[in-house]
């Protein structure tokens, strides 16, 4: 590898690297290219790597050089005045200090994210929430939340939120006037035909749902339509077909020995993915350290068209066209039926192994292997999960039925697949109901439309014509957080509270009851949607029903808060003292109860009719759409943290793009960043190309959630909306035959995968389960004599009298989801730098997740490696700092002292892990107005010209030590968690005292799989990694076997 690489270049024998970042690294010509050599030698680029014509207009994100000079000039002038005299600062105390507030000490409030149903703890400092963490008591989050939920704290402080009610065109009006006008109209409608429609996303709260229904009862023709996200809509449809109930099953991934994912990105973007990740990893992905010889691991097969986070974690992955997912699934189903001795349903008869293999390009033997593994796992020991946008063709219900058939045949139904007890009952309405709403609107049969926290004009495919239908409704009211695409076409925009400002509850799935409470007073003149309903009911004298009528009539207790309490009293608090129960629930955030029992539902055989006849694949490109873990459906497009979160698989930020396989790109003579035109029956969009290994040759894939036009300053005009291609009648998001043509223009996607390249030194280990069983230390590539403290050092050894902090990261547990990156960003005030700075390799994330491929570009294996400051014992950065700004402390931390740093960047140059980040600009200035409330006051906000990096969350260490000191004890193991560790759903990151040999982290450092990155450099990192073990047959584990044992050392010498 690297050694061989250098040697190879001299002798013209080229050995491709075992782990690579992009397919081009597998060719000798790439490494011989002097431009590449120069590019790879630089950590930063003064200008974008290539001079590029941008798609349309110049990039305006981030600070331009000229602005920078102006800023510089201004601050120089200011600096020369400012120092001479001390600025006068004010201290403004409370008038009446709230009892629970102590300046400098955070309060935590348990609340709920109503969009996902996840329980969160909001960390509140002096009345402002600054960070969200998962509620450990909550059945789904168990301490973890996704990157998106993490980042929602920034939505709270978003400057582009609607700040007061307004009419179309943006003219502001008071709540009083808005209520008066709207209530009068509603009263009129109620007296007439009463055709009021509410349109919202899926509502997860019983109380909000009840209030909505009771309000709608005042209208004879009232109805509520809930939009499902498109992926789970199919899932529900399939459940109705096969089992007759509209649910999203709860999957027990922890109990499955074999998982077959048919497009379902359950580790990234499909369903309750943090919960699934935790279950799946803890249930069977960590090989037994005590008895390696008999170690067992669960096995994951993934059939998909775009490489997802789940696909990247697969043991065996089948890259197919979107329609190929169903074909492979049907072939597996037929095989399974045969092996189980059941009669093969007639619908599967055309999906023979050979036909499917020839059509999809998946080897028949592999299909058989998957079927065999499923059967061999035994009854109720596997899961088949299907769905997701990238497999959502016009036959997506058929795919669901095949998955259901498999689960029932394999005995999973009622065991690992729970369709009644703990299933998600809060599902959206079927597509027909949405279509009916649109046709009603077009026919003038809707008197008023109230859109609640939804953005159908953007989120529904354009071809459904929602915007045009909306223009025919005489009264459209948008209740939401901003005047978005829908709001700007509505007659009224009524700003809703952010969820951290509001009350509520969520009962997302069976057995999970979660309470939502406000964590701060509303920042703007917003009002809860629920209070708006009550206000209309009161003002318009509407004949609302039930509890809503009681509350609306009450003078003293007529708010949404009162309604929620009353509903909880009726539902949960019948016995005992309700106030005590309520206080307890507020404290815990959840009602704890035993998990609900489940039973197997019987599979309705006629549903197999949904399986389509075998349709041979067409030639030419087909489009697959998918949702990114960061951006999702694009609702949070104005969130800069999410825009700058690198996609786990493509590592791209800030844009969407057309993913294309290396083979297809070579055939079309297209390279990375070339702009192509994608055409489908007259509709075209231009997208830059991202070369993505692991795609079927005929697949091009692009993410939805981009191309917003009314999201706000950050999110507008980022990327292109690919939903323009979706046909409203079939609702097929994938499998669309598109034409792709070169334009000759170029547009640089802000991809981070080439940044911080380690000069091809071996930085990670991966082995197969068989290798692990035969030699559990198989991963240790380096010479044991070169390891750790065995090498003499010229520096005096550090002494650690008290604690010594260390970390262990399990590459088997890390799924690459990226939640830790946002957690770190939120905790440590890491700025956002903008697209152009990312292109220059100036992103500031203290923690990144490196993604490496191995094997063939057609179907590579993937390893994710979280990379952060390694807090080396012999830190190369410390010895080169001329001003001692980076020093070792007596607890093993490699400290970065901002006030000493003068910005020489020597340390960065000398860091072999490339984890140091330099502030080229005053990035914090991009936070405007209320966004400044999101800063963590326990961490210095860094200014221009200084270096920063991971501190092991030293502020959390101090905080925890402070508490322990108060109690006169030492810190307990795992009592102290870093931000990344805290949010990791799979507990891949463990942090603790390595001076104490009994701690979890000390044990993991002694694990047979433990290795330190670049040990040969004798930096002695405080972070150890655990080798990735794949549950696949030996010969598949990459092409370049590890023949070179001492590569790094030779490379360095």
């Amino acid at each position, binding site marked *: 590898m690297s050694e061989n690489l250098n040697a190879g270049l001299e002798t013209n024998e080229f050995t491709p690297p075992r782990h690579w970042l992009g397919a081009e690294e597998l060719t000798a010509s790439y490494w011989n290219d002097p431009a590449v050599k120069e590019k790879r030698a630089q950590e930063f680029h003064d200008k974008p790597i290539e001079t590029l014509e941008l798609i349309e207009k110049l990039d305006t994100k981030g600070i331009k050089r000229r602005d920078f000079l102006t800023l510089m000039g201004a601050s120089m002038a200011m600096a020369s005045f400012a*120092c*001479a005299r*001390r600025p*006068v*600062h*004010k*201290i*403004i*105390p*409370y*008038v*009446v*200090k709230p009892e629970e507030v*102590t*300046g*400098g*000490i955070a309060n935590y409030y348990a609340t709920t994210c109503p969009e996902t149903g996840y329980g969160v703890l909001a960390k509140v400092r002096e009345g402002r929430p600054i960070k969200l963490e998962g509620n450990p008591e909550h059945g789904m989050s168990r301490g973890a939340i996704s990157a998106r939920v993490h980042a929602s704290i920034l939505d709270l402080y978003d400057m582009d939120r609607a700040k007061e009610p307004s009419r179309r065109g943006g003219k502001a009006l008071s709540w009083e006037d808005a209520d008066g006008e709207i209530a009068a109209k509603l009263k009129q409608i109620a007296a007439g035909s009463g055709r009021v429609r509410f349109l919202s996303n899926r509502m997860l709260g019983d109380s909000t749902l009840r209030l909505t229904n009771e309000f709608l009862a005042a209208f004879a023709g009232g109805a509520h339509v809930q939009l499902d996200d498109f992926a789970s809509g199919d899932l529900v449809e399939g459940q109705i077909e096969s089992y007759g109930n509209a649910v999203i099953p709860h999957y027990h991934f922890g109990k499955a020995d074999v998982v077959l994912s048919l497009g379902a990105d359950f580790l990234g973007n499909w369903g309750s993915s943090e919960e699934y990740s935790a279950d799946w990893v803890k249930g069977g992905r960590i090989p037994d350290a005590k008895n390696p010889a008999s170690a067992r691991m669960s096995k994951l097969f993934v059939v998909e068209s775009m490489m997802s986070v789940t696909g990247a974690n697969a043991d065996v992955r089948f890259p197919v066209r979107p329609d190929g997912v169903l074909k492979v699934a049907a072939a597996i189903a037929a095989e399974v039926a045969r092996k189980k001795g059941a009669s093969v349903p007639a619908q599967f008869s055309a999906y023979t192994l050979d036909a499917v293999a020839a059509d999809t390009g998946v080897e028949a033997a592999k299909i058989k292997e998957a079927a065999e593994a499923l059967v061999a796992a035994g009854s109720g020991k596997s899961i088949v999960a299907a769905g997701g946008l990238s497999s959502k063709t016009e036959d997506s219900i058929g795919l669901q039925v095949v998955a259901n058939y498999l689960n029932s045949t394999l005995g999973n139904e009622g065991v690992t697949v729970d369709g009644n007890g703990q299933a998600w009952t809060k599902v959206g309405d079927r597509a027909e109901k949405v279509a009916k709403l649109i046709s009603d609107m077009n026919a003038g049969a809707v008197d008023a439309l109230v859109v609640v926290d939804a953005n159908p004009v953007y989120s529904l495919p354009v071809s459904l014509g929602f915007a045009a239908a909306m223009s025919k409704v005489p009264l459209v009211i948008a209740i939401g957080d901003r005047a978005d695409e829908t709001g700007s076409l509505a007659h009224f925009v009524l700003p809703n509270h952010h969820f951290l400002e509001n009350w509520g509850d969520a009962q997302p799935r069976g057995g999970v009851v979660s309470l939502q409470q406000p964590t701060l007073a509303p920042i703007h003149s917003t009002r809860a949607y629920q209070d708006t309903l009550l206000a209309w009911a009161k003002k318009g004298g509407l004949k609302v029903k039930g509890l809503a009528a009681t509350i609306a009539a009450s003078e003293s207790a007529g708010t949404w808060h009162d309604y929620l309490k009353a509903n909880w009293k009726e539902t949960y608090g019948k016995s005992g003292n309700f106030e005590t129960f309520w206080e307890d629930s507020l404290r815990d955030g959840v009602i704890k109860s035993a998990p609900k029992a489940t039973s197997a539902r019987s599979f309705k055989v006629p549903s197999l009719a949904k399986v389509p006849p075998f349709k041979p694949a067409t030639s030419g490109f087909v489009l697959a759409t998918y949702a990114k873990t960061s951006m999702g459906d694009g609702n949070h497009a104005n969130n800069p943290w999410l825009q700058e979160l690198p996609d786990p698989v493509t590592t791209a930020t800030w844009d969407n793009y057309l993913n294309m396989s290396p083979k297809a790109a070579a055939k079309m003579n297209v390279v990375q960043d070339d702009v192509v035109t994608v055409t489908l029956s007259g509709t075209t969009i231009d997208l830059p190309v991202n070369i993505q290994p692991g795609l079927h040759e005929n697949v091009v894939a692009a993410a939805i959630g981009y191309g917003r036009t009314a999201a706000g300053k950050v999110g507008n005009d980022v990327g292109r909306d690919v939903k323009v291609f979706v046909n409203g009648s079939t609702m097929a998001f994938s499998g669309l035959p598109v034409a792709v043509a070169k334009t000759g223009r170029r547009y640089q996607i802000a991809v981070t995968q080439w940044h911080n390249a380690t000069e091809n030194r071996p930085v990670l280990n991966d082995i197969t389960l068989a290798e692990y069983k035969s030699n559990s230390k198989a991963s240790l590539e380096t010479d044991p004599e070169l390891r750790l403290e065995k090498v003499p050092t010229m520096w005096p050894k550090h002494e650690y*009298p*008290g604690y010594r902090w260390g970390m262990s990261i399990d590459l088997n547990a890390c799924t690459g989801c990226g939640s830790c990156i946002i957690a770190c960003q939120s905790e440590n005030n890491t700025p956002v730098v903008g697209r152009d700075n990312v292109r220059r390799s100036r992103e500031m994330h203290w923690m990144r997740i490196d993604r490496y491929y191995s094997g063939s570009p057609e179907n590579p294996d993937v390893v994710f490696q979280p990379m952060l400051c390694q807090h080396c014992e012999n830190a190369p950065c410390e010895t080169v700092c001329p001003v001692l700004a980076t*020093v070792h*402390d*007596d*607890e093993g*931390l490699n*400290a970065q*002292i*901002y*006030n*000493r740093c003068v910005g020489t960047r020597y340390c960065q140059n000398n860091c072999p892990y490339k984890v140091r980040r330099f502030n080229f600009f005053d990035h914090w200035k991009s936070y405007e107005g209320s966004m400044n409330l999101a800063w963590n006051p*326990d*961490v*210095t*906000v860094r200014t221009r010209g200084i270096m920063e990096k991971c*501190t092991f969350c*030293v*502020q959390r260490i*101090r905080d925890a030590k*402070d508490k322990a*000191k*108060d109690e006169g004890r030492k810190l307990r193991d795992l009592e102290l968690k870093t931000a990344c560790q805290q949010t990791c759903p799979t507990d891949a990151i463990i942090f603790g005292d390595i001076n104490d040999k009994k701690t979890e982290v000390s044990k993991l450092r002694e694990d047979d799989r433990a290795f330190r990155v670049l040990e040969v450099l004798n930096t002695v990192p405080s972070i150890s990694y655990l080798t990735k073990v794949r549950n696949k047959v030996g010969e598949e584990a990459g092409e370049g076997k590890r023949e070179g044992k001492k590569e790094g050392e030779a490379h360095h010498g």
Partner: protein
Amino acid sequence: MSKGLSVVVGGVALLIVGYALATVVPRTSNQGYAPTQPIPFSHKIHAGDNKIPCQYCHSDVEKSRHAGIPSTAVCMNCHKVVKTTSPLIQQVRKAWDEGRAIEWVRIHELPDFVYFPHKRHLAAGLACQTCHGEVQTMDKVYQFGALTMGWCMECHRGRSTPSNVLAGIEAKGSPHGPGQAAPTQCTTCHY
């Protein structure tokens, strides 16, 4: 030009340069800073003459990094009945009635990159006066300590540490090395 004259000229020039430097180069300490407060609150009357404990008003000091400035409600605890006719108290009363916070001028201020916990210092047995001076004798409070890093380090290294505090630490066996009163790691205060 005589030798004596050039010495005088040179000396004057040096003085001018020195004075210029002294005024232009920023001072790192604000020792002695005594701004005028919006209401001339006297610590001497409260903490000195009337012997009100510091922590009656600065109640967070044992719990938090910050000692805290009392809310107006704390003033009103007493001044609802005490000295209600005084014109100064009426200023407080007015702010209280209007629900308006009193904007005090900050005297002790560390740079944003310094994290100083009051709580730990009190737990070590330090008196408020060690750093803040004899506040109970001050009509107008001024910055007593230098609040520079060197000034902090003197105490942490055990050189200017009050003897009772040092004795307490040594009795427990200093974890920071012999003679050391407190940690002197960079990360003790900077992060």
